[in-house]
């Protein structure tokens, strides 16, 4: 299964996503430059963490206009899996591929720490390899990770089982402890924590592999 890692000029977790997929998961990954109009035949897309175009405006507000995002939109519309991590989540929200918004952390500071996540649904290509209610340890590293949405959206997310992970201890003030959400079609996931930073024992946790393994289970072009 071939992964594509989108590289905006200010992406800084692109190498980490590539390393997690290529070395720790064992699947090929390639970089896709932000002004590319196509995705070059990849099976899954990762929007990595970082500061896409500096994010001096709202995070992701400029990235949504980049040429590659038109290709990502099309890919998602065709059912291709899109994983937005941290800044990638912020971009997906700005681009309208996911509902709600991400605003500054409740304490108004950048927070880097390991958090515990409760797996809320197994019914998605990003979580199907997990166990029901499984607690995963992985780090967060963001200044604007507080998830907000109106009540109706939050109710809808709950009713449609589209909250993938919730924080066990809410670090940033996110409404209803939301750490990760799915789109209606369940092929786009945005999450603030960094699964790519938890893909081998030396990183302190391998729990993030669950997300990538789920993708492989769901989307690997079947040989049989």
């Amino acid at each position, binding site marked *: 299964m071939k992964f594509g890692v989108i590289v905006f000029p200010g992406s800084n977790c692109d190498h980490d996503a590539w390393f997690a997929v290529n070395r720790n998961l064992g699947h090929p990954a390639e970089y896709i430059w932000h002004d590319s109009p196509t995705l070059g035949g990849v099976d899954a897309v990762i929007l990595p963490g970082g500061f896409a175009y*500096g994010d001096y405006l709202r995070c992701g507000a400029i990235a949504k206009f980049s040429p590659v995002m038109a290709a990502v939109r099309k890919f998602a519309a065709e059912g291709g899996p899109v994983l937005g991590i941290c800044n990638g989540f912020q971009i997906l929200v700005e681009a309208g591929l996911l509902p709600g918004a991400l605003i500054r952390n409740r304490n108004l500071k950048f927070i*880097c720490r390991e958090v515990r996540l409760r797996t809320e649904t197994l019914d998605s290509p990003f979580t199907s390899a997990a166990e029901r209610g499984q607690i995963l340890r992985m780090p967060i590293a963001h200044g604007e990770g507080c998830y907000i949405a109106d009540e109706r959206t939050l109710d809808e997310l709950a009713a449609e089982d589209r909250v993938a992970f919730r924080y066990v201890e809410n670090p940033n003030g996110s409404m209803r402890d939301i750490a990760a959400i799915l789109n209606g079609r369940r092929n786009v996931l945005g999450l603030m924590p960094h699964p790519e930073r938890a893909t081998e024992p*030396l990183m302190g946790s391998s729990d993030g592999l669950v997300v990538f393994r789920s993708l492989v289970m769901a989307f690997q072009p079947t040989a049989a």
Partner: protein
Amino acid sequence: MSTLAITPDLVAQHQLAESEYRKIVSILGREPSYTELGIFSVMWSEHCSYKSSRLHLKKLPTRGKLVVQGPGENAGIVDVGGGYVIAFKIESHNHPSFIEPFQGAATGVGGILRDIFTMGARPIAVLDSLRFGPLDDPQAGPRNRRILQGVVAGIAHYGNCFGVPTVGGECVFEPCYNGNPLVNVFALGVAKKEDIFYARAAGIGNPVIYVGAKTGRDGIHGASMASAEFTEESKQKRPNVQVGDPFLEKLLLEACLEAMQTGAIVGIQDMGAAGLTCSTCEMGSRGGTGIEIELDLVPQRETGMTPYEIMLSESQERMLLVAAKGREDEVFQVFRKWGLDAVTIGQVTADGLLRVRQHGEVVAEIPNRELADEAPLYDRPHSAPPCRPLAPSPAHEPVSPQAALTTLLASGDICSKRYIWEQYDYQVRTNTLAGPGADAAIVRIKENGVSIAMSLDGNSRYGYLSPREGAMLAVAESCRNLATVGAQPVAATNCLNFGNPERPEIMGQLVAAIEGLGEACRFFDTPITGGNVSLYNETLGEGIWPTPVIGIVGLMPTAAPVTRDFKAPGRSIILLGGLGDCDEMRFGGTQYAKVILKELWGLPPALDMDYEKRVHAAMREIVAAGLAESAHDLSDGGLAVAAAECCLGGVGAALHFESDLSPEFLLFHEGPSRILISTANPDSVAELAARHAVEAPRVGITMNSALAIRNRDATLVIAKIDSLNAIYEGSLANQLRS
């Protein structure tokens, strides 16, 4: 050339001495123009020329078998094996951080990162050594709290966006930093050995190319500001502080590394202090060439800038490079891809001169070598540092050891700095094996199976009592921190923060500290490959204590590191190095003296370097043999604080001693050469220690949820870990709230 008359007043305003001005006239064979005067003033400032310290810095060891590049380039370079090298250096940004904490600290990070990637190395770690006035200072407390918060936010802003992990450092509080906070930033990068780049302008006729941000009027005379004392007017110097753009720096990093791969780049240097001036004349001087530039071609943010302003601007995120003639387009193409300005502004010449034109007219013409390397050299008068009173400790009310321990755990220097380091992305690049809070930070190099351990250390209380011994103790502690995680120290960088060198007693401190550093670095085989001197750290005539900060890097095979916390109950606890000794005189610089007695006297703890080195060797072997389940070195606060810190992960300890030392000395003396280890194989540890002639008494056993310390029949400490944790973790945030 400009006809503005050069008056003695104008010369003085540029902080040039009369003798220095005469030297300028003799180099040029004429009076300088206004622009030339500005150029000389920044290049010959203390900050750029090291004119007060250079004579003494020559005494430092700089060579070693792994050292590829010592002082004199943008960063030192060390071979780490497998075809890879690391580039690293520490820099101060003290003065700007006092005037504008957020941007001052942010641009400090930006400056040192450019020093690293200009050599072709991708930055993979940053550490910070911070010094502030006390947060609860009756007068300066509110300002100190604001400075700390601004500095930390600035470091986070720049490092997090750039994408380099901030993996460690230190943060210390003393009243001498009330008007003079210290912000020392260390950065380290990795490169393939054959991909190292140097800041040399070679090849007559090669184009000189300017890349990165446009030049504005910001930061003019920053280098001179950093070479003067602060007065009441200093707050008006805010325009001298630059504004950082970490996103632009990230683009510059990627573009430079990519452009270097084309093979079309001959030499490259960042524009840091003294901007375009420094980068042109230093590259020319190192290459033995001249450089000719036309200022009309320099990308400018503002209109109507004078040659003086363009040459002295310290706008951030700019680089100067020399490309191979005819291959400019390969370079331009890379920079275009990253959306950056890149323009040819001149060429390398054979005449050794820095020739600056504006509108085609020559506005400055100065020999590169004289400008860059012939700055006046001063052997400033220095007096032996004054001996502090050697009197025994002042009379004081006895304090229960338990109360003293909890007070120390809550004190600024010792308490958890989580409030600070959680604001830093310490994991980006997924190489961080040990991050903030560990004895030494560890980052792996994915490509070659080697990990780099790093520690920044400095103790200004020791330095105040004895600049020489204080410097040696800093080196010893830094090496001990590396040994504790199993790493072999290989090289060092230093940041020397002192007051006004024109005062003989301050100069005396500097000379003594350099001698101490030299002796210790020679002994521990850690050549100094570069660094920084920050003088004039004075406000209203009040100088800081001598604060040499040493950063030492070590090598180790990549593996899960040994960490501080006890791991499981029922393990033996060994005090590698033994209890050590102490007397009244050697107790006066301790945290106990500072926090509990509120005094400072005598001498720093006694250091036996030979013994210290044996402890390190034994420790490394213990780690390599997989015998240590946990390890933590004893430093600030001594034995009791170290033991308490080892318990904070949840597993406690019962320690029992049979010592003649008084409870204060036993628990809180800060004698070096000691490491607390927990192990399931105490006999093997003891055997290894004995082979190095190092004491390794078994002092207790790990247990659940409490810390108990007894000496003979007396219980000195009995505390629940939860309550110790609450005190240790909550203190800094509480102090910042008040």
